[in-house]
């Protein structure tokens, strides 16, 4: 902790004067956090390469032995593999020799990994197995016998799988995944991941904002009906819909949920048609038709795991989002939508239709791609000023209403503990 704090102090003095967290605590967030390259670098070390679990991919994305796919641990490129025995591994996508990317394709099949630059070879667990011309050629050249290139091998991640979701960490100090999440978050991951997964496809979007601004947006339950006016414009929503938020003990993970005003099926269609006849509402309310597949009446559940993972249920549309930091003012958001192996054709159709609500063109989530960018631009010239995060007071506790910023404050609580700030 000593060196971490010292490093942080250095990072915080790189711009105007000494930077410290505001005395008000979690109800204030300083804007310099979103634009300082030194902070960004420290986050990579202390958060993404630190004691956190980061979502890498679905197990279903590596369906067969001897396959690999690329992913990221924060900004760090990694390779996830399934070896010939079916075991999963993940390691840094960086050759021991000169640091070149080892794997260039997004995914593929391979028995070993060979660096294209100088043909150094690795097994699927990331162990260096061969160095080309290690002993030279015809007694000339080659590497001295005392060389230990293996000591420079790509760093290996520890992995844990939860319901087919693969998480990785570089730190030896990260607690076991279930303990990291806590029972309240864990049960709500399990709620959604109720059966073996069937992938429906993916896409991604570039966000013109710092990664933290997007994660704050995810955890900000206050903005939902204010920024996203699709439901209210078409009068599809009751504002009094019951729901709430759950914030983990650490503050870093959250769940927000709301019960659907209808139970799916015909009610929506009838309500929609009534609305349409009166001059508002959807002409095609079938868009929103759904089945309560989890049997608890919850129509929307957004779950985040610190630092950058989101699991989403929007009626029958299910997706994970993986956020990749790409510098202080840019991120990539990768969406993967899924259903379950036991889905029938109707359920798949429902999931695809309801996916109109999500993604870069989503009726609800379209604005989320842009709003963090509005903040990024808004605060670029105000590093010394602060945002006000006081909805719901100063608490980071779970609540039975969503007009609160408790989960945003929870994010900063976890952030500060990892960053030592």
């Amino acid at each position, binding site marked *: 902790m000593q060196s971490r704090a010292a490093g942080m102090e250095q990072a915080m003095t790189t711009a105007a004067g000494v930077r410290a967290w505001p005395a008000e605590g979690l109800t204030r967030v300083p804007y310099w956090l979103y634009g300082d390259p030194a902070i960004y670098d420290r986050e990579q070390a202390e958060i993404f390469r630190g004691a956190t679990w980061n979502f890498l991919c679905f197990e279903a994305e590596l369906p067969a032995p001897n396959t690999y796919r690329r992913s990221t641990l924060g900004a760090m490129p990694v390779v996830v593999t399934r070896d010939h025995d079916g075991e999963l591994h993940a390691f840094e996508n960086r050759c021991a020799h000169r640091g070149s990317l080892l794997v260039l394709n997004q995914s593929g099949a391979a028995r070993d990994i060979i660096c294209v630059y100088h043909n150094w070879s690795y097994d699927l667990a990331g162990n260096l197995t061969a160095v080309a011309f290690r002993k030279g050629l015809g007694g000339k050249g080659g590497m001295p016998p005392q060389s230990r290139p293996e000591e420079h091998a790509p760093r290996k991640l520890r992995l844990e799988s939860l319901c087919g979701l693969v998480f990785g960490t570089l730190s030896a100090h990260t607690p076991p995944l279930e303990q990291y999440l806590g029972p309240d978050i864990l049960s709500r991951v399990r709620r959604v991941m109720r059966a073996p997964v069937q*992938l*429906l*496809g*993916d*896409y*991604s*979007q*570039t*966000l*013109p904002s710092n990664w933290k601004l997007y994660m704050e947006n995810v955890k900000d339950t206050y903005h939902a009906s204010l*920024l996203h*006016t*699709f439901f209210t*414009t*078409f009068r599809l929503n009751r504002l009094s819909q019951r729901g709430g938020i759950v914030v983990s003990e650490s503050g870093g993970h959250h769940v927000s949920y709301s019960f659907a005003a209808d139970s799916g099926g015909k009610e929506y269609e009838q309500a929609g048609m009534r609305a349409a006849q009166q001059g508002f509402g*959807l*002409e*095609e309310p079938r*868009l929103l038709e759904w089945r309560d597949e989890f049997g608890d009446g919850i129509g929307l559940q957004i779950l985040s795991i610190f630092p950058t993972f989101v699991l989403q249920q929007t009626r029958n549309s299910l997706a994970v989002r993986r956020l990749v930091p790409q510098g202080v003012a840019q991120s*990539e958001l990768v969406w993967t*939508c899924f259903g379950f192996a036991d889905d029938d054709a109707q359920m*798949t159709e429902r999931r*695809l*239709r309801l*996916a*109109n609500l999500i*993604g*870069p*063109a*989503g*009726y609800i989530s*379209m*604005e989320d*791609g*842009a709003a963090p*960018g509005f903040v990024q631009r808004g605060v670029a010239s105000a590093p010394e000023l602060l945002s006000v995060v006081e909805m719901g007071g100063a608490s980071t506790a779970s609540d039975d209403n969503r007009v609160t910023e408790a989960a945003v404050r929870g994010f900063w609580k976890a952030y500060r503990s990892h960053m030592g700030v």
Partner: protein
Amino acid sequence: MPIELQLEVQNLNARYAEAIDDNNLEAWPDFFTPEGHYRVTTAENFEKGLPLAMIYATSRAMLRDRVRSLRDANVYEAQRYRHLIGPALIREQESGEVHAQTSFMVARIMHTGETTLFATGRYRDRIVLGAGQDGGAQFAQKIVILDSRLIDTLLAIPL
């Protein structure tokens, strides 16, 4: 391939692009048959046979709903498109239906003046001749296959 057919498809594509680029989105659904399908997907998903789309509409009414949402509900910065549409490759023609594939590039012009190459890809179209009220051709299906999996910020206006 009769030149008249080639010209008819080219004319349909040109009018389609004009409606979008001139911000006449209300005219956009009428380029489709009442049961017309419209999907925006990525080449990756399409080639893997994965069904996920960014926009997934199975009727003209759903397209009208999308236009109303863009006009009245969704929040996005003012922007325009400019489509450049290549020659249609007509693959099949049978009993008044034409299967065509056409390359496109779309520039996005933001209110700030910033102009970027926003999307490239191909249209896979099933076109019904003489389906419109004016006797013109309409899309029974239009699959927009984006070359890239990556959208810059958001996709509001249809492609």
